[in-house]
C-alpha cells in the first residue's frame, strides 16, 4: 500500500507540471474565442493551483492500473470517479461550469455514458476471452487424459 502511495505521488508530481501549461492553452483558446479578455490575479492563481492539483491527481491515479488485484473495470471506475470529482471541482472552483442543474447533468451524463460504454466493451471482451480459453483448456485436458 505504502509503495502504491509513493508511486501515486511520484506520478502525480511528474504530471502536475503540465497543469499550468494546459491552463495557459485553455486561456489562450478562450481569449481567441473572445470569451475572456482579461484575468484577475485571483483567477490566474486559482487556475494555476487548481490545474496543478488536477494534473497531480490525474497523473497519480494511473497507479490503479498497476494494482494487480483490481480488475480492469474496477480500476477504470475508480479512476473515472476520482477524475470526475477532480474535474467537477476544478470546473466549479474556476467558475467554468455554469450554475444550475442542467450543465451539471450534461457534464455528468457525458462521464457516465463514457464509462458505461467502456464497461460494456470490457465485459463483452472478457466473456469472449474466457470462452476461448475455456475451450482450449477443455481440449487440452481431454488430450492429456
Amino acid at each position, binding site marked *: 500500500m505504502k509503495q502504491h502511495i509513493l508511486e501515486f505521488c511520484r506520478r502525480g508530481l511528474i504530471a502536475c507540471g503540465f497543469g499550468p501549461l494546459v491552463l495557459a492553452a485553455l486561456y489562450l483558446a478562450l481569449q481567441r474565442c473572445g470569451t475572456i479578455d482579461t484575468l484577475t490575479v485571483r483567477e490566474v492563481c486559482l487556475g494555476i493551483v487548481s490545474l496543478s492539483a488536477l494534473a497531480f491527481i490525474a497523473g497519480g491515479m494511473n497507479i490503479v492500473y498497476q494494482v494487480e488485484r483490481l480488475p480492469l473495470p474496477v480500476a477504470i471506475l475508480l479512476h473515472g470517479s476520482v477524475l470526475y470529482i477532480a474535474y467537477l471541482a476544478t470546473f466549479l472552483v474556476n467558475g467554468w461550469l455554469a450554475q444550475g442543474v442542467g450543465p451539471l447533468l450534461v457534464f455528468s451524463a457525458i462521464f457516465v455514458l463514457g464509462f458505461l460504454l467502456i464497461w460494456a466493451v470490457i465485459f463483452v471482451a472478457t466473456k469472449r476471452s474466457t470462452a476461448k480459453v475455456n475451450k482450449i*483448456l477443455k481440449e487440452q485436458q481431454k488430450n492429456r487424459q
Partner: protein
Amino acid sequence: MKYKLIIDKEAEEEIVAIVHAPSSLTQQIEDLVFRHSGTDSLLGYREDEMRRLALQDIECITVLDRKVVAIDAHGTHYRLQDRLRDLEAVLPSYFIRINKSTLANEHRIVRFDAAFSGGVDAVFRCGYRDYVSRRCFADIRRRYEGL
C-alpha cells in the same frame, strides 16, 4: 516421433521432449521424471497432522494470511513450509501462476469465469475459486493461443 538416448556421464541428467503440443505422453513423461526424482509430492501440515500430498491431487497453492497453503481435491487446506517462489521453480509445468500469490494446477481448473466486475476467476474442481490477474490471464491466453 523419434526416440533418442544420449549417454554422457559428464552432463547433468535431463529429459527433453520436443513436441508440437502437450499430450498425454508428455504428461506421463513429466510425471515419471518427478516420481523418479522423488519430487512428486509435498509435505503438508494441518493441525497436528502431517501428510504427503501428491502434486496431482493439489488443486492450487496459495498464500492465505501470509502462509503458503495447498488446497487438495476435497478443499482441505494444508500449510506448506516452502515459499511460493521456490515452489514455482520446482513444480511441474501444469502448475501455472494465476496471480501473484497463487499457483494453480491446470488439470484441476474446471473453467475460467468472467466476473461481473470484469475480472476473471479460476474455478477449481473442489469449488474453490480465485481471481486471475490481468497479467497472468494474458500469459495463459498467449500460451494457449500458441498451442
